[in-house]
């Protein structure tokens, strides 16, 4: 069979191979796993595609999709691609302003939105989106009284497609034939840690190629399960979810709600799982929190055996020999504890567990590894696809593994990582200037600082622009400090601060309200709100221990000297974080400028009046006083 290199082509091949006999997608809804066979999915995609065609969708036109992971999401996406169109995936928590920019910039002709909430957002800005002709939705609750003529239901499109297909027999198959692997399948907006987001154009060849490359270092069979929980607006979802699903024929499992992922995953036992550092850190702190609440016996087993597992993990990760008694003890720990823990978090079958996005703290990494899960660091992006990943039994802390087959990596004189591969992005949409800057002589200039070691492992440090430098010219890695702090059960977020005008490093720390709250209750410390809890003396002492722990691993000059516990969380709605929950440093430094100045000026506390934005867009203010903590 010739190699198929288009997404709809793969869907068709699977349909011809398995038809009604195999399940393609499983979606948890109404508390049950609803199953859709390859035939069912193929028909949905076919009808929806022809429906869009009958509404006038032409090749190279764009369709925005906004909604949580649900079968309709993928059917709509595959349908757009089958019509040789391009999918512009949106984050569900994007505010109307962001949607206006991305949808308009990408020249979207149609918008497919999940529900009333998303449709309302589009209606708010519809006048500013003259190029959008139709808005289609697939979850009908609350939509009965919407009369806008450009609003259509998902099943209406399917019906239109069905009729169109009867009038034009064979047209869908013909369209699939016409797709070229170099057609642009998806448009991803870079998360925009710097300036306005750029739109990365990824071809079918690029997306499928990256997943093929991943398959050279791990296995996946049609019997296996994949979990679709990453936001589809992130390239990681395609590479580890829908594209892998089509390429191999593995079942795509979709959790009920974003909030139920941690539970639903235990029913799926996925073979592959990709998470950002925050997801993994979430898993680890969940285990710790549960252990803290468990009975005395469970706690005793954990306290006895977990150190053994950590010790063995440490030896392995450092490449040292594990002596026989330790091996024996580890086997015992595995039998009595680790297996249960893996099962409890749903990762007992995770062959290819990977972390990507930003740097994962060493402690978290070691903890997952100690559980018996080979957590591989993966290095990739919308532009470069999957660039490198650890091989099985060659997992090392501090590197992101060797380059995958078909990928070449070198380091420029400035210390920038350059990538050349068959499955890099095509170009930036409507931005030739950025394209010519990023793509030169076939190399992609990643903007990441790093180097390649003797064994060919790539070592990623940080974005070139993100390494911090103090007045003394000493460098420090803000992300390392932050992820070290976030490892604590009691810390949700942190930002390290320091630049050429500063003599030392400071930090803004966000407490984990749930866990600190529980700790406070157990210790009979009364508190009212987040603000109140964050400024308690007891909380300060609790967090101080964590800051000291991180400081111990740092050279003297790079240590955190002062920090504050912020009175609220960082919030994507206030542009504190990007949608993948990375910190927006410049915005944060602006917003908390006064606070930062106060830390460096040696003040002990600072009254603040913060503007907060409610979820409905209203604004309010909050007055409080923040204590500044100093470490010796």
């Amino acid at each position, binding site marked *: 069979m010739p190699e198929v290199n288009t997404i709809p082509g793969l869907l068709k091949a699977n349909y011809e191979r398995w038809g009604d006999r195999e399940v393609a997608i499983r979606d948890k*809804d*109404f*508390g049950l796993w609803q199953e859709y066979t390859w035939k069912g999915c193929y028909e949905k995609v076919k009808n929806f595609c022809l429906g869009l065609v009958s509404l006038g969708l032409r090749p190279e036109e764009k369709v925005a999709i906004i909604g949580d992971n649900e079968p309709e999401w993928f059917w709509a996406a595959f349908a757009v691609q089958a019509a040789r169109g391009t999918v512009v995936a949106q984050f569900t928590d994007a505010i109307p302003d962001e949607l206006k920019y991305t949808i308009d910039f990408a020249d979207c002709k149609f918008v497919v939105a999940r529900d009333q909430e998303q449709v309302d957002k589009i209606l708010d800005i519809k006048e500013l989106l003259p190029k959008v002709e139709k808005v289609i939705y697939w979850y009908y*609750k609350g939509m*009965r009284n919407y009369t806008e003529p450009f609003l259509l239901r998902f099943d209406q499109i399917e019906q239109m497609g069905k009729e169109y297909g009867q009038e034009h027999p064979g047209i869908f198959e013909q369209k699939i034939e016409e797709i070229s692997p170099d057609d642009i399948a998806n448009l991803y907006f870079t998360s925009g840690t710097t300036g306005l987001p750029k739109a990365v154009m990824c071809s079918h060849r690029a997306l499928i190629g990256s997943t093929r490359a991943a398959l050279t270092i791990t296995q996946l069979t049609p019997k296996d399960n994949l979990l679709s929980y990453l936001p589809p607006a992130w390239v990681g979802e395609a590479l580890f979810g829908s594209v892998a699903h089509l390429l191999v024929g593995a079942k795509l499992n979709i959790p*009920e*709600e974003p909030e139920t992922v941690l539970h639903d995953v235990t029913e799926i036992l996925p073979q592959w799982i990709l998470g950002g550092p925050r997801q993994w850190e979430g898993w680890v702190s969940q285990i710790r929190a549960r252990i803290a609440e468990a009975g005395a016996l469970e706690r005793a087993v954990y306290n006895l055996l977990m150190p053994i597992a950590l010790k063995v993990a440490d030896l392995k990760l450092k490449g040292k020999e594990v002596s026989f008694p330790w091996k024996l003890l580890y086997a015992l720990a595995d039998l009595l504890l680790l297996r249960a823990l893996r099962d409890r978090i749903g990762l007992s079958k995770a062959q290819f567990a990977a972390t990507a996005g930003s740097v994962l703290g060493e402690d978290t990494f070691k903890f997952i590894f100690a559980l018996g899960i080979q957590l591989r660091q993966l290095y990739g992006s919308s532009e470069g696809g999957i660039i490198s990943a650890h091989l099985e039994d060659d997992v090392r802390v501090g590197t992101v593994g060797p380059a995958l087959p078909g990928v070449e990596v070198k380091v420029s004189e400035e210390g920038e990582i350059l990538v050349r591969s068959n499955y890099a992005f095509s170009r930036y949409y409507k931005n030739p200037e950025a394209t010519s800057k990023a793509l030169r002589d076939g190399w992609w200039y990643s903007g990441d600082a790093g180097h390649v070691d003797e064994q060919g492992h790539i070592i990623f440090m940080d974005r070139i622009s993100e390494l911090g430098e103090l007045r003394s010219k000493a460098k420090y890695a803000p992300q390392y400090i932050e992820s070290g702090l976030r490892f604590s059960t009691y810390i949700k977020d942190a930002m390290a601060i320091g630049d050429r005008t500063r003599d030392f490093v400071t930090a803004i720390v966000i407490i984990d309200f749930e866990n600190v709250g529980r700790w406070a209750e157990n210790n009979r410390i009364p508190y009212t709100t987040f603000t109140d809890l964050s400024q308690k003396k007891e909380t300060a002492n609790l967090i101080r221990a964590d800051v000291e722990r991180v400081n111990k691993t740092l050279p003297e000059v790079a240590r955190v000297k002062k920090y504050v516990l912020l009175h609220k969380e960082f919030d994507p709605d206030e542009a504190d974080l990007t949608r993948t929950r990375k910190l927006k440093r410049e915005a944060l430094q602006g917003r908390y400028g006064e606070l930062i100045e106060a830390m460096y000026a040696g003040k002990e506390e600072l009254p603040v009046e913060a503007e907060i934005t*409610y979820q*409905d867009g209203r604004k309010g203010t909050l007055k409080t006083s923040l204590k500044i903590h100093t470490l010796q």
Partner: protein
Amino acid sequence: MTGGNGIVLEVKNLKLTFGAVQALAEVSLEVKEHEILAIIGPNGAGKTSLLNCINGFYRPGEGQVIFQGKDITRSSPHSIAQLGISRTFQNIQLYTGLTALDNIMAGRHLFFQRGMAACALFFGWARREEIEHRRIVEEILDFLEIKPIRKMAVGALSYGLRKRVDLGRALALEPKLLLLDEPMAGMNREEKEDMARFILDVYEERGTPMVLIEHDMGLVMDIADRVVVLDFGRKIAEGLPQEIRNNEKVIRAYLGKG
């Protein structure tokens, strides 16, 4: 199935006394087939007492309650529930030890046809029946966006979520009239907006007429079609939200005599 002229519920000259305290004095009002009627008034005005009379918790001394043309003044609460009047409570009345799912399922007990033995054996008809009820309950969970907490004990839920479960339980009765007793009390702005949206969704999707007791005038203005104002057990005003806002008597009742 209305009394003819599009009126679902008619309350006529209702009087209710507790000893010397007159809780309700000659209160009359009508709920139309397609409306959300808000009842407002200061604390102790008799709002909850009125709801209690409607769904049979209290027996009024005088007057009549007519639901769909039928006099239900002397009916018991459970037979009124069977007729299709369902309510939520100011102080949430749920089984705190049961899950959200079971609480809403309990709201459907009126519809269970099979006997205890058949249900306990979970066999044949009883099984089919249970599955059908579960499907309806799952739809309510979906509607109110509480699927993630389906299996959580209600006692462990936040106040806002418990209120939502309480509404779910009321909906499980497939009511023809819904009485909501301060569904948004004690909530923050955001929870209130959520709740208001759910109430409007229920109204739009199911067309269920509602009687709503609420203090937040802003919300009443937003969602009610008509407003009735009670003060010391008497109806002092009735009309469109806009009229009520500018009504002298109402302002005096709320702000004290000027």
